[in-house]
């Protein structure tokens, strides 16, 4: 299990190209758990967390481009959060301060757990994953990138280098259920984006399927029901239907953490509350608060 720490992206990609079993590591919050448990990668471990090309974030026209090695703590940065509040909300729910200082958005994508906290937000934001290899770069929508539980569209020699988020005038919420009030893997989560430019609602759900799911029928219903011309408000009487449609779109399982029926109930309730906060006047006490 050799370890290499390249000093730039080109070197890193070269290792990934020449060694078919090479595995990238950034914060190590997933990979080190496996290594500590004796599940050792057979190939070279390539440190990518400090690659300058993967660090930082920038505006590129109407897009926000986040380096893959941005940590959860950095995602909660107030300037970044103002453009992308749901991502900052999700980042705050990850693990502990120790985990947030190390774990990265690129790692969340590469691991592709059905419970990955940033993933429903990225899906609801119609984000794009940028992958690089010695053969060049390509972009793929997050939805297409997340193929299944812990399976992605990335080729073996490709590295997640950035996430591109199209910014729009939108209201956003991320809600996550866990059994304890801190440090929990999501039992169910919902990311809601009310896109005022596109006049469309996007609802993504985590931990209720093999990967992040969109609630298309619920999105259509909500998008139609919202009065976009008058403050993008929603009649609260529409919320129960919305919740039922979201619950119907979930494909949860029973496991030792929770039950399918509870998870299904959760996403319905979470989506209802998200839209209530974002589109039912007066705004609920919690909407948009920094705390």
């Amino acid at each position, binding site marked *: 299990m050799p370890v290499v720490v390249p000093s730039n992206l080109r070197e890193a990609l070269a290792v990934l190209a020449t060694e078919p079993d090479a595995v990238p590591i950034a914060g*190590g*919050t997933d990979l080190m758990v496996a290594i*500590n448990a004796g599940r050792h990668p057979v190939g070279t471990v390539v440190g990518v967390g400090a690659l300058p090309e993967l660090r930082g974030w920038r505006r590129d026209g109407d897009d926000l481009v986040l380096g893959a090695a941005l940590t959860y703590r950095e995602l909660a940065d107030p300037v970044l959060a103002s453009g992308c509040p749901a991502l900052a909300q999700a980042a705050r729910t990850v*693990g502990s*301060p*120790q*985990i947030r200082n190390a774990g990265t958005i690129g790692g969340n994508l590469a691991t592709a757990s059905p419970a990955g906290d940033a993933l429903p937000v990225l899906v609801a934001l119609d984000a794009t994953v940028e992958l690089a290899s010695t053969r060049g770069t390509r972009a793929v929508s997050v939805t297409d990138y997340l193929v299944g539980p812990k399976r992605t569209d990335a080729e073996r020699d490709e590295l997640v280098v950035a996430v591109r988020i199209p910014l729009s005038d939108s209201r956003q919420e991320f809600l996550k259920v866990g059994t304890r009030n*801190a440090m929990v893997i999501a039992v169910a989560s919902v990311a809601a984006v009310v896109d005022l430019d596109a006049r469309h609602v996007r609802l993504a759900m985590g931990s209720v399927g093999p990967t992040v799911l969109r609630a298309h029928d619920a999105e259509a219903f909500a998008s139609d029901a919202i009065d976009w011309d008058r403050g993008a408000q929603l009649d609260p009487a529409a919320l129960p239907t919305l919740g039922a449609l979201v619950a119907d779109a979930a494909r949860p399982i029973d496991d030792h953490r929770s039950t399918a029926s509870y998870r299904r109930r959760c996403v319905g309730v979470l989506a209802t509350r998200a839209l209530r906060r974002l589109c039912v006047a007066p705004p609920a006490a919690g909407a948009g608060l920094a705390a």
Partner: protein
Amino acid sequence: MTAFTLRVNGDEHAVPDAWDGESLLYVLRERLGLPGAKNACEQGECGSCSVLVDGALVCSCLVLAAGVADHDVTTVEGLVVDGVLSDVQQAFVDAGAVQCGFCTPGLVMTVTDLLARDGEPDDLEVREALAGNLCRCTGYGRVLEAVRTTIRRRRGDEVAVPVPAPVTR
């Protein structure tokens, strides 16, 4: 096998023959003679192994030792200066925040980091900052009091009474 140098608490340590997959926690404890950081889960779920790497609080069990060569590591052993406990360490002692002590080094590191970044956190901010450190003995009450004590002392509202050195034979 791999060889590298770690900079811990300001000192350079050569690590000539570590197995590649060893975590920073393992190397600190088993190779560098710095057992202050504790292994209570090796999954990043308990915070007992917390250290600072380049000033950032992380779980050392999740850090590949070879990956932090030439970075600055601070452990609990680095908080004592000239034989004097840091004010955070002293507050833990004074407030009764130590029972079995297994979680203590990790908590001390987390509190040290918190108060270095925010001098006047309120109760919920303190709790959120400490949520990654599990303690099974104290129920956290006296730990929170240790944080409040440190804040008061830094503000000058309180002074610590020096404790006489314990008698030894």
